[in-house]
């Protein structure tokens, strides 16, 4: 399987924050969600992949070529917090510039995407609502023949309907099986259904990288009464919540299935992320990549 992103020991050191070492791989034709709290290092990782942050260790390949070797700009579509074009540009201006700058610019596809997303052709970028701005940036990023989209928190601050529209566009983008998306977000609900792969960053460390289902299958949501809350369970529990009528926690699957007299259910991605962020440790013994 072709890998469009492959990092090995990727490290970026700042004075008070270190990202890495990061080992992750994204095969062609899939969507990977890069999740983690604010400050976990998601933007730093994306910048490193784009050559905007120098590495202090390790390396990476993009689209099969070592990072640092110029991959054609056209092959990678990017949406960062700042737009890649002028604030006063319209969708039409972008089309003109891209037609001149990218040999593979797909004008028809660009326009049809804009129509589908209800983005006006003649409005200046700075006059658009944030949701429309993001739709325009995404449409532009998908229009120049890119096989890899790198998106840094595109859905932050957008309403649910807009976020759903964007997720639909991402699924269309990977539909042929030869293109992939790496999208960072801390709004996990967006990814819960459509994401194939997950990379979970916590304080600069990659706590998990692999199939989303593998990640979820390593845990269970467990609910029980006081009698079931042994010291062992307390130790293994992630996001333990005790109430007057019992307790609930996420447990590694082996610990969960060993318990009697408790309710044991699959865990949703959002619930798992909340629990881990609240101070649980990813149990490396339960999670196999």
């Amino acid at each position, binding site marked *: 399987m072709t890998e469009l992103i492959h990092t090995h020991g990727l490290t970026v050191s700042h004075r008070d924050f270190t990202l890495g070492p990061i080992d992750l791989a994204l095969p062609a*034709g*899939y*969507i990977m969600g890069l999740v983690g709290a604010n400050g976990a290092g998601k933007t730093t990782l994306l910048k490193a992949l784009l050559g905007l942050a120098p590495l202090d260790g390790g390396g990476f390949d993009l689209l099969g070529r070592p990072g640092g070797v110029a991959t054609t700009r056209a092959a990678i579509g990017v949406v960062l917090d700042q737009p890649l074009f002028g604030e006063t540009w319209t969708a039409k201006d972008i089309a003109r510039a891209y037609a001149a700058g990218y040999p593979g610019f797909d004008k028809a596809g660009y326009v049809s995407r804009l129509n589908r997303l209800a983005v006006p052709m003649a409005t200046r970028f700075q006059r658009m609502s944030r949701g429309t701005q993001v739709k325009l940036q995404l449409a532009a990023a998908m229009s120049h023949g890119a096989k890899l989209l790198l998106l840094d928190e595109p859905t932050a601050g957008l309403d649910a309907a807009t976020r759903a529209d964007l*997720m*639909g566009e991402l*699924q*269309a983008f*990977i*539909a*042929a*099986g030869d293109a992939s998306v790496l999208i960072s977000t801390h709004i996990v609900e967006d990814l819960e*259904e*459509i*994401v*194939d*792969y997950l990379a979970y960053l916590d304080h600069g460390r990659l706590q998990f990288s692999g*199939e*989303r*289902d593998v990640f979820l299958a390593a845990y269970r949501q467990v609910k029980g009464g006081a009698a079931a809350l042994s010291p062992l369970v307390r130790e293994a529990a992630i996001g333990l919540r005790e109430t007057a009528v019992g307790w609930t926690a996420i447990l590694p699957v082996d610990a969960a299935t060993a318990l009697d007299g408790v309710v044991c*259910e*699959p865990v949703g991605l959002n619930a798992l992320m909340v629990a881990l962020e609240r101070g649980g440790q990813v149990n490396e013994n339960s999670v196999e990549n």
Partner: protein
Amino acid sequence: MNITISNQAEGPIYAQIETQIKAAIVSGTLPAAAQLPSIRALARDLQISVITTTRAYRDLEAAGFIDTVPGKGAFVRAQDPALLQERVLTRIEDHLQAAIDDAALGQVPASTLHDMLDDLLKAGDDHD
């Protein structure tokens, strides 16, 4: 062919897809050699991940319901009627055994079980 999945804890999504496709094949709604939606088209339509639909199709192929042809797609495999019947009988046996086990737990005698079965069958006939 229609596939409807539920996010509300009716079992993993890949299993729901498998169950519905199997049912459609067994009932004849999906005849032999019929083409299924591609893995990616199905993922888009159901708004789920590609890995989920891939798993469903892989399981269906391993269980002998479909064939996937690289570059062409997924097709319903002609089902052996004897084998299908065999499967149905096994499922009925499993259900009956579960009822028998429950009856033993509740100390319900065999005669009552027989009566219950007859009543249910009769009620089923009345509905038709």
